[in-house]
């Protein structure tokens, strides 16, 4: 029986060890690429070990270092973090396979650098998932930003550098300019930064200042992409597709909304949130973002850009969930992290596969491609259904919880907005599939029968598409895992 602390450290150490192994093996591409997969599998293996313990109600914890009294880097695995870590490390295996296929297929350069920073990003994401206090979380949050910068700038051309600068500027700007002050003020006022069931603010911070802090937190967590600080996400799309897939559909953006949930539930506490005047303001900002981003997504012809705006919109679902201050909605928000992750990663994988096979990036060029790449577009269809929230995919459950939460808490306008936005989802996600299958191919694209992307691209996207369907059945156990994180905050 391995001790709790050891497991937590192992989960963090594996990607780092993998990173060093990669550097050492950089001269032998085959060995290096297999090491990437080995690292991902090993990490998932370790994280899974923690799951039964968390389900048993244990909270594995470990304290790494104390900078000075009251400020430490420490870990505590609770259900929400468990879920996030499982999600990130599990999808990493698939992404690692895909990345190898993609990087070779698309003839990208600097493979080792790419994989190395990927490892650091996963390490940081795990750190975020397991952090037991806001300071640790902040440290890993920044590490995630910094480690993904080289990935965004990977291509090294002007567009990549410009996009990467926006990316870094907005994420660092919001986190240092807004989040850090909020963290410091919280520490100053509440005397602690520990994530505590029920929150730490009640009784320590008067609601007026609490309201201000909420705004600082929600905008400071730039990774959650609330408008107007969402520009970094479309900018990040200059990165190679595996990065967009795992990091900008899963690890980075989900780290953002994960932090939002953590802050709302464990720092503010749902009861305290109800007292704040600004909760509703943030709620409506989120609702506005989810509608506006959907509208912008419809205008995009570049497939990845459309997906990026779709992500901005979907992230706001989760922020909305947190700000509804209903247990039902908060649970839905937690579930949506998983559901959307599977759906969106599938979509990105498909976008990448299309690029590798045909070098096409614009939706209007993809007419009729469905006949050439049936598997890819079928997967795209399933991914889209999951994001929209239609059975038989997992997405339906998280949306259902959200609707119920909004209805329960009496926000009729939010219910309406959710309905509108779902319709918009359909309007911007389904046409690419429909056009690909039903419209005739463009001139010069005819013939050739089926020419899919390499197997290493197609298999992963099929797997995640199957995952979307499997989640339709697995939603119950997922909710079971998550419920304890809310039970303590009253209501259930």
């Amino acid at each position, binding site marked *: 029986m391995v001790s709790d602390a050891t497991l937590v450290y192992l989960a963090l150490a594996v990607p780092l060890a993998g990173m060093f192994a990669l550097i050492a093996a950089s001269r032998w591409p085959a060995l290096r690429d297999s090491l990437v997969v080995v690292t991902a599998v090993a990490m998932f293996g370790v994280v899974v070990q923690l799951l039964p313990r968390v389900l048993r109600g244990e909270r594995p914890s470990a304290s790494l*270092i104390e*900078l*000075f009294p009251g*400020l430490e*880097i420490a870990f505590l695995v609770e259900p929400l973090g468990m879920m996030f870590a499982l999600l990130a490390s599990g999808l990493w295996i698939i992404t690692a396979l895909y990345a190898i296929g993609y990087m070779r297929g698309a003839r990208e350069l600097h493979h080792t650098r790419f994989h190395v920073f990927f490892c650091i990003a996963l390490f940081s994401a795990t750190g975020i998932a397991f952090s037991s206090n806001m*300071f640790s979380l*902040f*440290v890993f949050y*920044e590490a995630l930003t910094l480690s993904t910068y*080289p990935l965004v*700038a990977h291509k*090294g051309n002007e567009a990549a*550098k410009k996009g990467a*600068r926006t990316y*870094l500027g907005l994420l*660092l*700007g919001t986190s*240092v*300019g807004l989040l*850090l*002050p909020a963290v*410091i*003020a919280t520490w*100053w006022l509440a005397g602690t930064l520990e994530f505590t069931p029920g929150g730490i603010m009640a009784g320590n911070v008067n609601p007026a200042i609490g309201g201000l802090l909420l705004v600082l937190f929600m905008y400071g967590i730039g990774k959650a992409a609330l408008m107007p600080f969402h520009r970094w996400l479309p900018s990040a799309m200059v990165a190679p597709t595996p990065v967009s897939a795992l990091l900008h559909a899963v690890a980075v953006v989900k780290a953002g909304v994960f932090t939002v949930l953590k802050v709302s539930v464990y720092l503010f506490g749902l009861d305290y949130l109800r007292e704040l005047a600004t909760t509703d303001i943030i709620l409506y900002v989120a609702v506005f973002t989810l509608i506006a981003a959907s509208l912008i997504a419809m205008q995009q012809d570049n497939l990845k850009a459309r997906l990026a705006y779709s992500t901005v919109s979907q992230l706001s679902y989760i922020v909305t969930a947190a700000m509804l201050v209903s247990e039902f909605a908060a649970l839905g928000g937690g579930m949506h992290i998983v559901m959307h992750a599977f759906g969106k990663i599938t979509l990105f994988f498909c976008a990448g596969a299309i690029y590798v096979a045909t070098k096409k990036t614009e939706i209007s060029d993809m007419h009729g491609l469905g006949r050439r790449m049936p598997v890819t577009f079928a997967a795209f269809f399933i991914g889209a259904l999951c994001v929209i929230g239609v059975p038989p995919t997992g997405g339906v459950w998280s949306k259902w919880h959200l609707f119920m939460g909004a209805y329960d808490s009496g926000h009729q306008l939010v219910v309406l907005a959710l309905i509108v936005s779902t319709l918009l989802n359909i309007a911007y996600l389904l046409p690419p599939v429909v056009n690909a299958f039903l419209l005739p191919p463009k001139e010069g694209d005819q013939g050739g029968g089926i020419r899919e992307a390499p197997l290493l691209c197609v298999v992963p996207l099929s797997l995640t598409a199957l995952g979307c369907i499997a989640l339709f059945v697995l939603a119950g156990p997922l909710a079971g895992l998550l419920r304890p994180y809310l039970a303590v905050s009253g209501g259930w």
Partner: protein
Amino acid sequence: MTEHLPALQVVIALTAAPLVMLLNRLPRLAWGVTLAACWATLAIALLLLLQVSDGGEIRYEMGGWAPPWGIEYRVDGANAWVLLIIGLVSAVVMPFARRSVEQEIPADRLGLFYSAFLLANAGLLGIAITNDAFNIFVFFEISALASYALIAMGRDRRAVLSSYQYLIMGTIGTTFLLIGIGFLYIMTGTLNLSDLATRLEGVTDTRTIRAAFGFIAVGISLKLALFPLHLWLPNAYSYAPSMVTVFLSATATKVAIYVLLRFVYTVFGFEFSFVELSMAWVLMPLALLGIVIPSLVAVFQDDVKRLLAYSSVAQVGYMILGISLASALGLMASTVHLFNHAITKAALFMAVGCLVYRLGGVSLSRVAGAAERMPWTMAAFVVAGLSLIGVPLTAGFVTKWHLLQAALMDGFWPVAALLLATSLIAAIYIWKVVEAAYFRAPPDDAREVREAPLSLLVPTWTLTAMTIIFGVWAQLPISAARNAAEALLGAPQPW
């Protein structure tokens, strides 16, 4: 033997200087002797710090002459901390110096160069350790004269000019200090700092003492490059030989800040400086302007060395800001930043020294693409740069955190906000360099270069590692800085 440690602290470097000069024909030996002297200095500084770490003090009468006739050396938590910073930086910079200096200084002047370095070092140590006001002036001039010579040895002809400008500004500063000391002497009849403190109590409410305070404050402000009296600094740091820039940037301004603290807290006393003269209201605006404007100027620099020099002016602003908060916590933040900034900026300038060694210059266009060919150097630059920005888990963060707490404690919310904003500016100028080195193609006429030699890299990484180590295990510098602050305030603090 141990009772003579305070004297040896200064004397070793001071006597090694002429010896090294005589060894001018044997540059390697000259370097060896200098190295030995610097390491001995560090060892003594460590021993002294340990002795006073419990809040005590050591008094040493030079030549057995008791004060007020003789010169007294006095070591307490505050100056032991400064001595350690000087000792540490000189001990780490010397291994770095050998190859860097051999490349930048003509072979027939190496011994003279090291001799001047030792004099500068001895001067700074002397300023820190002495308890005699006039002695401070003399040591200021010793270190300054040696520094002028060191800076003038830079390869660029502008080095001489900037050394000249520094000489003019520096001399005005020390002369002001001398006049201020004169006023103090008229009123009290003593030059011993401790005596001054006790004898001033009855006469503080006079115009003479106020004038003394003004002259001393302005004089020292010139030496510590307080905005807007910082004009000599960017040129001097940009054109000096690499090793000199490392050493001076990490020590010279720090020592001047220590002298300011010593006069403000020990001699004039907190009550007089902050309550009667409301010094905080003069210092704080200057500190804030001094943080913001040079930071912005740094963003637009094309030469990395110059960029970092402007950043140094901004960092002085942080230290002054801590003082101007007029609280124990603010003072402690300043004292801990003395150390944190010393190791951070020295690491950065050393990385720049490595770049200069291989590339010949550090304009952004020359640095372009350097990361691929000099990965270790640039990695050190990035890590130390993060510390300069104040990213968590680096030394810089420890400072910023305490400074922020101190600002918040007194309700200076806008100041706290400004601190964070300037961290972002620091991020921008550091990132400019990083982006050039990592993401730009090298210029077409770039020389084929390799990674810097180990003798340069090892010291660079020693300090770089320290910025991480003391960012993670921060208790050590924090407790030393608290001890220093308590020594200055003259009373234990609750923290």
